[in-house]
């Protein structure tokens, strides 16, 4: 094999067939996709490098019909349009108009607004749960796809145009935005930017409804320049204000974009040293004319796919490449993936995998074809620090070192164990767990308590004598209130959860099916050392040192009671899984 070479850094010259190897093909598959089995890598290694890169980049001809479409749960209907921004807004609307979210206020009787509040909480929970299903569906695609670069780019754009369901409270908008990322994955950044600016999820996320003529909200105008195109320092606060005016009246009309002419400011704007009667698309076009925009995007793609801190000269070169191709992303990626720089020592084994990349690549390396339901994706991604469709802020996820703390490293090892030794006995579906408070109210209601009593706050047991008195006091108070109140929020939360959980389609819960023994034996391993070497090759791109290898062999030999696999063929699986867990706990497994 040709060694990764130091002097290749910053050199965009394409590598030649003579430079091609299994290790380099493996590197390509990790970065342009999510890694794969040794067979996947061998297939790429057998092609000339241009063809291998094309197999990943020019994926439009690659069949992918086996991927299932997202199956929506039957949870939405048109009465949920213009969902109130808060419970307060919901009940105010109901009091004012006699109805909200398709539910009428009771003409008389106690808790006249209760059905409205129930309805509010129903959708709040339903869209949260459906968003988890959507994330599960997406990661399943990442595991199963024949076009890994398309998924990797969708993941990149999701982090770039970061939008979160927690704010917009409508999974349908997230689903639609995700389709946008899949469609434009390696296509034109220009087309993507304009579509994102008119995308209902983004419009809702960055407060488009508040951006109106005469009282512009600068949220989108600021982020589009700071985070999506140019980066700070390339425009003034005045440019932000002027751009915000140009975007006034751009609103999300349920799942469509609409220009509200009455709210649009069609006056003259002065933006980035230009004057005109600009609208939003004009603003985006002017932004795309700026050389810094192409450099910013190309630089961010480079850092995602190749390595941190490209030299300014290289970044300028990459920016020119993107602009010369009219912002088409595929040609830039093709150049990168073929470049000597990409295979140089500075790039090899330097990327800290993000949590989703770690999860997907773990499954793909084990040859698993569908995302398992155990462990639960949502729980794992929360523990590892990357919940899809709910980024921490509009800036997305900080990449690189920010993915790792000592605790998160331990959590990654724990994820590996959950894959290799799924704890099915203790597994409960987290989507059926509404949290302690709702469970408590549920138990009390089922036990026949009055709503007002069942929903009063618990006092902690350790408070001793004090708590007894307090609780008594509260119940009395609660009973006094019970007759008078218009609705009970805690009860609404319970009913909302129940209704949402009843209607959400379940996520299939099965552990991953794979057979390490078969993999090792098919690879012709004869001894414990061979088996360890096969697993190291399968799982790692950054080698471990000799001492670690010796320890792994030692563990395996002790578990097998022999060095010869042939003698242990009937009980090979668990010992191999133990070794795989150890390898996946290594710091090297976090890198590619």
């Amino acid at each position, binding site marked *: 094999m040709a060694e990764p070479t130091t002097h290749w850094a910053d050199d965009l010259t394409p590598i030649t067939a003579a430079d091609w190897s299994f290790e380099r093909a493996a590197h390509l598959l990790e970065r342009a996709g999510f890694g794969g089995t040794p067979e996947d890598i061998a297939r790429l290694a057998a092609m000339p490098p241009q063809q291998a890169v094309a197999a990943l980049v020019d994926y439009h001809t690659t069949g992918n019909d086996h991927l299932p479409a997202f199956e929506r749960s039957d949870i939405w209907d048109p009465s949920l349009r213009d969902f109130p921004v*808060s419970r307060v807004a919901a009940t105010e609307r109901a009091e004012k108009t006699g109805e909200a979210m398709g539910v009428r206020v009771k003409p008389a009787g106690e808790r006249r607004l209760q059905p409205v509040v129930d309805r509010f909480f129903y959708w709040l929970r339903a869209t949260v749960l459906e968003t988890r299903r959507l994330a599960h569906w997406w990661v399943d695609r990442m595991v199963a796809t024949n076009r890994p670069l398309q998924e990797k780019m969708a993941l990149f754009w999701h982090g770039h145009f970061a939008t979160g369901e927690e704010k917009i409270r409508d999974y349908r908008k997230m689903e639609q935005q995700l389709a946008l990322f899949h469609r434009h994955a390696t296509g034109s950044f220009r087309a993507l930017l304009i579509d994102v600016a008119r995308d209902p999820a983004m419009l809702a996320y960055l407060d488009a409804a508040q951006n109106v003529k005469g009282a512009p909200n600068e949220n989108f105008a600021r982020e589009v320049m*700071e985070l999506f195109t140019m980066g700070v320092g390339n425009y003034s606060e005045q440019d932000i204000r002027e751009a915000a005016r140009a975007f006034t009246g751009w609103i999300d009309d349920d799942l469509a974009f609409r220009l509200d002419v009455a709210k649009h400011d069609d006056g003259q704007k002065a933006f980035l040293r230009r004057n005109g009667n600009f609208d939003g698309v004009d603003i985006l076009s002017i932004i795309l004319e700026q050389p810094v925009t192409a450099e910013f995007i190309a630089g961010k793609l480079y850092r995602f796919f190749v390595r941190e801190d490209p030299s300014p000269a290289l970044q300028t070169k990459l920016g020119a490449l993107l602009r010369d191709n009219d912002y088409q992303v595929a040609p830039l990626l093709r150049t990168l993936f073929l470049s000597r720089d990409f295979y140089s020592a500075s790039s090899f084994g330097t990327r800290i995998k993000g949590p989703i990349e770690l999860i997907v690549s773990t499954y793909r390396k084990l040859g698993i074809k569908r995302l398992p339901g155990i462990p639960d994706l949502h729980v794992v991604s*929360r523990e590892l620090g990357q919940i899809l469709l709910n980024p*921490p802020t509009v800036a997305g996820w*900080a990449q690189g070192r920010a993915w790792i*703390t*000592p*605790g998160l490293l331990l959590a990654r090892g724990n994820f590996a164990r959950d894959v290799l030794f799924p704890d099915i006995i203790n597994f409960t579906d987290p989507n059926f767990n509404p949290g302690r408070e709702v469970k408590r109210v549920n138990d009390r209601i089922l036990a026949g308590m009055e709503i007002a009593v069942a929903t*009063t706050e618990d006092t902690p047991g350790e408070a001793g004598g004090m708590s007894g008195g307090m609780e008594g006091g509260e119940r009395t108070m609660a009973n006094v209130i019970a007759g008078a109140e218009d609705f009970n929020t805690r009860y609404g939360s319970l009913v909302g959860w129940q209704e949402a959980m009843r209607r959400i389609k379940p996520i299939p819960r099965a552990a991953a099916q794979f057979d390490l023994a078969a993999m090792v034996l098919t690879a012709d391993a004869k001894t414990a050392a061979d088996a360890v070497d096969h697993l190291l090759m399968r799982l790692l791109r950054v080698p471990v040192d000799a001492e670690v290898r010796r320890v*792994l062999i030692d563990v395996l030999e002790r578990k097998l009671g022999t060095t010869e696999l042939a003698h242990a063929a009937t009980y090979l699986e668990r010992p191999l899984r133990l070794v795989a867990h150890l390898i996946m706990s290594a710091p090297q497994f976090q890198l590619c």
Partner: protein
Amino acid sequence: MRRSSRHSPRRSSQLGGIARRDLLRLGFGSLALGASGNLERSPFWAQAAAATQEGRILVVVELSGGNDGLNTVVPYADDAYYRARPRIGIKPERLRKLDQHFGFQSTMAGFERLYKDGHLAIVHGVGYDQPSFSHFASMAFWQTAAPNRGELYGWLGRAADAMDPAGHANYIVNIDTQQSLAVRSRVHVPLVFDDPQKFTRTGFAEEAAALKTIASRGQAENEAQAFMLGVSRSALDAEQLVRDAWAKYRTPIDYGLVRFGLERVAALIAADFPTRIYYVAYRNNAFDTHVYQGDVHARLWTYTSDHIAAFMRDVARLGRGKEVVLLAFSEFGRRVKENTSRGTDHGTAGPAFVIGAPVIGGQYGKMPSLTDLEDGNLKYTTDYRRIYATLARTWMGHRDTDGLLRGNFEPLPLLEA
């Protein structure tokens, strides 16, 4: 004026014979604060500060859920308060009065003691422009010091990167199950743990020895590999250090009924951890008191005020009182008017608390009007980044708080330099 007050914190709320609060009430708040704030920025002060700030510790306590500030520091002299809250307003006779205008609710004995000792600063009306009513968004704004915009790293993470570019191990400790955005850093690797005894890798018994080797062995061929090996090794060390610190730690002090993390901070301080920034949260959106909030909120403050006061006593006991300053904040306050369920809904501004022996106790900032509202909400009077500027610059010796906070925010004169 500023200097003389350094030796008698309790008199610091006097400005030239006029009570600070009166000045604030008269609307001179920013003027008075501005004048002493300028001292901080003179080169002399900056140098003197930098020379003495090694080893100082900042503890940030996040009260998640949106604390009802009006029922915490109760403006009992204002009738508008009782008009807006006929059922949940706390009667004057049930308050721990601080002065003629404000009182803590009765469960806050710990805070009252700290205030009377001159170790607790209340900053009134803390918030920001274009407030978000979403827990998630508003908390992210506080955690990143970047309201209404996106930011990859936390304000404490960025401060740590600037103050210690080498990224020394365990400079930041975050007591939680998840890393807070507030401490997310480009260079530093925060130590995040919840239960010191469970801060460990799960493994089968037969893996234990091998796991140690695997976690610590390897030759780095590049920076990323060196970093990963470093974290992996320090994870091993950190597990052990934290467990040891916790096992050794004994305190006679009662940390209250809900020990949300400060006792673990004290254990690390007692064990001489090199940590300069601790981040602790009262978790699970606890302060989100939409319904029947009276007893719930009172109880939350029993726990919070007991816990913080205990921590302050404990660090004093350890002889480290002069090295520790604590900030307690919540992502927003609540609406002025009570709701129909005897609770309160998401609002805007609220009080924040800066606590510690080095703090010049008293009240800072202007209390927002309870009648001049914006859509039923208080208009904030002090941008929260002024508190951050105070802590970062005056306390921690961070020189470029303009860069850190992306703007010029005048520190409040609530700390001895």
